[in-house]
């Protein structure tokens, strides 16, 4: 009963928030998006104040009353201090590197401030488990990498960023919840496929990895002569040229081996589709570390073979975004 009420309340709060504070690339903390309310400690502080007042009144003791009023005014001034501790900060997302599902996404935020105010003990986090605290004294800007756990591949939209501060006395809590207009590309988790891989077209697909390596040594071709530097193997020295010019040159060979691997959706029959993507991801990474070119084939997606870093990124994003519709990601914003 109470749980459903809580749910209902929180869903209403969320819709209200999203209307009031829509997602933006940059935010500036100001009156519009900052909330302030006494904390539990603040409530107990008020209890203390009232006991002071009772003590002072009953004993007709002006000094205790004076202390009581001082506490009230400190609380009052504390409201300004707590508010100003957050006010005037501006933040934007500077970097959101792609990650693999199940990892922590590190989203880098850049905080700048207007003026030279100190900002102390500001707790920031996407969720309650990975909070960081910035204590900002001298620098002009603060870069902070905030982690958030991501479980699903696709385009991850981080939850609302919560920023809160109890400074200076802990009596008041000033906070805001900002939706950052940013996404993190989440690749599938690389998982090694234990069952043997079925090659879709045997002619194109490479044999096992061991044999391909043995080939690579033979298929090197002569490319150019380079100046020999001491320490390089003598076998590569171009003796003919030495005889002619007296300069030690070495023969430089380049690897023109061309065993192109084809990664395909159809290589894993009977495997569940998410799992297939994870296997493909693992294979792609394996091949990339060996610097071997490979192609990718998914239903509706086809990428030609290459071995560059960009190609790997393209392959991984294709895997990440395979059959991810945009609505799913927007629903994730909670």
């Amino acid at each position, binding site marked *: 009963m109470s749980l459903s009420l809580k749910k209902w309340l929180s869903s209403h709060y969320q819709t209200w928030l999203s209307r009031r504070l829509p997602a*933006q690339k*940059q*935010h*500036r903390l100001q009156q519009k998006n900052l909330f302030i309310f006494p*904390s*539990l*400690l603040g409530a*107990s*502080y008020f209890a*203390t104040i009232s*006991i*002071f007042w*009772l*003590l002072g*009144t*009953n*004993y*007709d*003791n*002006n*000094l*205790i*009353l*004076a*202390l009581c*009023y*001082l*506490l*009230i*005014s*400190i609380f*009052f*001034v*504390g409201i*300004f*201090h707590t508010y100003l501790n957050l006010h005037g900060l*501006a933040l*934007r997302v500077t970097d959101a590197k792609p990650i693999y599902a199940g990892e922590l996404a590190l989203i880098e935020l850049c905080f*700048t401030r*207007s*003026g*030279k105010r100190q900002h*102390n*003990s500001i*707790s920031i986090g996407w969720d309650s488990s990975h*909070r*960081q*605290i*910035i*204590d900002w004294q001298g620098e*002009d*800007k603060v870069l902070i990498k905030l982690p958030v756990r991501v479980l699903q591949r696709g385009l991850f939209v981080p939850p609302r960023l919560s920023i*809160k501060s*109890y*400074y*200076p*006395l*802990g*009596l008041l*809590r000033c906070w805001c919840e900002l939706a950052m207009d940013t996404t993190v590309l989440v690749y599938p988790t690389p998982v090694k496929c234990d069952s043997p891989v079925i090659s879709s077209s045997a002619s194109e697909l490479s044999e096992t990895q061991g044999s391909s390596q043995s080939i690579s040594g033979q298929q090197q071709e002569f490319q150019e002569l380079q100046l020999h530097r001491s320490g390089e193997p003598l076998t590569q020295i171009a003796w003919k040229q030495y005889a002619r010019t007296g300069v030690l040159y070495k023969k430089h060979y380049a690897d023109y081996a061309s065993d192109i691997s084809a990664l395909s959706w159809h290589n894993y029959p009977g495997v569940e589709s998410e799992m297939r993507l994870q296997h493909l991801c693992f294979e792609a990474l394996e091949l990339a570390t060996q610097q071997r070119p490979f192609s990718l084939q998914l239903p509706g997606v086809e990428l030609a073979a290459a071995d560059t870093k960009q190609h790997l990124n393209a392959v991984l994003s294709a895997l990440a975004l395979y059959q991810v519709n945009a609505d799913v990601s927007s629903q994730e914003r909670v």
Partner: protein
Amino acid sequence: MAAAGNKLAANSIGWLMIGYCAALLPLFVHLPVWMPALAGLTLFWQLQIYRNKITVPAKLLKFLLVISSVGMLFYSLGSLFSLRGFVGLLCLAFCLKLLELQAKKDLYLLVFLGCFVSACQLLFSSTMSAFFYALICILVFHGCLITAQLQSQQQNGRSGQRGKVSAVLKLRWDSSHWRIIKSVLVLFVQGLPIAVVLFLVMPRIGSLWQVPINSSVAKTGVSDSLSVGDISRLNQDSSPAMRVTFKTKNKPDNSQLYWRGMVLADFDGKTWRRDTKISSTPVSAVQRSQLYQYATGPTAQTYSYQIMLEASGQNWLYALNTAEVENQQIRQWQDYSLTRSTVLNSRFQYQLRSHLNFKANPQTLSAEQFQLYTSLPSNSNPASRAMAEKLATQYSDPRRLIDALMRMFTSEFSYTLEPGKLQPANPIDDFLYNTKRGYCEHFASSTAFVLRAAGIPARIATGYQGGQWSSDASYLLVTQAAAHAWVEVWLDTQGWVRLDPTTAVAPQRIERGATRFLAQMQSATGLNAGINQWAFLRQMRLRLDGINYQWHRWVLGYDNQLQYNLVKQLLGGVDAWRIALLLLLATVVTAFPIAAVKLWRSRITMSDINLKSIARLEKKLLRLGLSREKGETLACFLQRSASHSTENKHVLTQLLIASNQLLYGPQQHANNTDRERIQQLLKELKY
């Protein structure tokens, strides 16, 4: 409270312990002697726990500790339902809670308890120094709250490490302490105006219920009885007895300043006491009308003044004779002595008008009264009695008799503070015939005895004599050392007349005032020369007392009446809206410097007119949440801004062109048109 449950940092513990010691220290005087030991024990214990040398005490041990210490407190104080009991329990809770200090919530509880304990010392002492001491204690506890906020990031830093980190409590002095002190002071200073206004205007509603009060107030220099020869040495106590502010311009001479308290009429051969009958008969209507008649007469020498009497633990009040009272709390008796209905447990301030020359109507003393004022125990001090009879036969006129007696004192007797003990059976005989040395009590007592024995009605009045004018002569300070006793004698033609035999022996005592005179006496007799000897120190003491007096008058004595007057005077009336206005004003006074500093810091300080307009542009964009990096050119920044804020894309692109033209365009370009263009474009920005 978010981070409740975290292990505490050394900083918090350090601040708490400083506050702990500071808050408890002044209370130890009022608490049983074992209390400091307990406080020290728990402090040491907690330090050892923090250093991981000892484990946290078991529940049973803590329970036993609580039970036994409460029991001991009950045993020591007799009752827990007294002020000391209440404070004692509070301190116990504070001390014992320290043992449980582990998480943040314990720290917070201790901080609040500490604030109470700091405030409690004000129940016992309300001097200015006590107040500021309590204030500092409370600020230290607030500093402790700040450390709890600041430490959370240190917590965060090592949150990865599991298990108990062996914490080393190092109370090093580093910059973070300065930062905390600064924050606390800023909070305090900014809160001060609001606190002052609240203090001035918040209504005082008086006690809500009966509370146990402090029963151990200071003893006065004047007690309710006077026995001769009990005390061999008079202690000089320079603590203030009362302070007097005269309303009138002219002030009485020092020799007129007899602050009359009690009248002692009963003598049992050794001790003078108040007569229960006389001192329970209110002043009669006849007496009142006499006084009134005199007051309106032309010869009246009238002074109007205000007395602030220190807590005496007794109920009688002091006044210059003869006083006229218009205060419901004060009652006047037949012998014109004054009392208050309740015992003075705290300072008491009252207004009086005194007519110095007033002589009670020389109406004949009633026989009953004559009997009372001449009665003596029949078998005491035979030698003195014989001398009195001899004198009575020699001089028929009481006045001449008195003169003869005084002459005798002048020629044969001397004033001393160390008279030594007198023979207990017949002390007056011993004094008059043997020792011949004494102070006011000896002289007054023996004079009254001799007069009574000679058939002249006499009584003893006690109180204070003289006083020291404050440095600006605004008020008179009367110390306990000025305690005095003198004789009042009934003369048929004049009524009751004051007779001070001490003047016969040591006239300077009266002329110069007790303090200076006694100081001289002391140094002359080789006693330790007290601070009174040093003129400079005396001046300092007086000045300090002046501040103290104002403190008492305006801070401690600030009551509903004063409040009403002040508010009325300040605001021209006491209405809710005026008070609200005042509070608002205080808030503004607080907020104004903050806002001014903020504005001053963010103001554009360019001397260059072009850069000024660019700075304005940047400030506008800041409202969009966009700020330029240091090394970023304006064009880059505006381009970036345009990509962020699509709705302003066009305006920003225009701004880019205009500002580049303004700052870097060919020299012959007209700059003011560019500036105007920028101004215009800025207005088109949508937020």
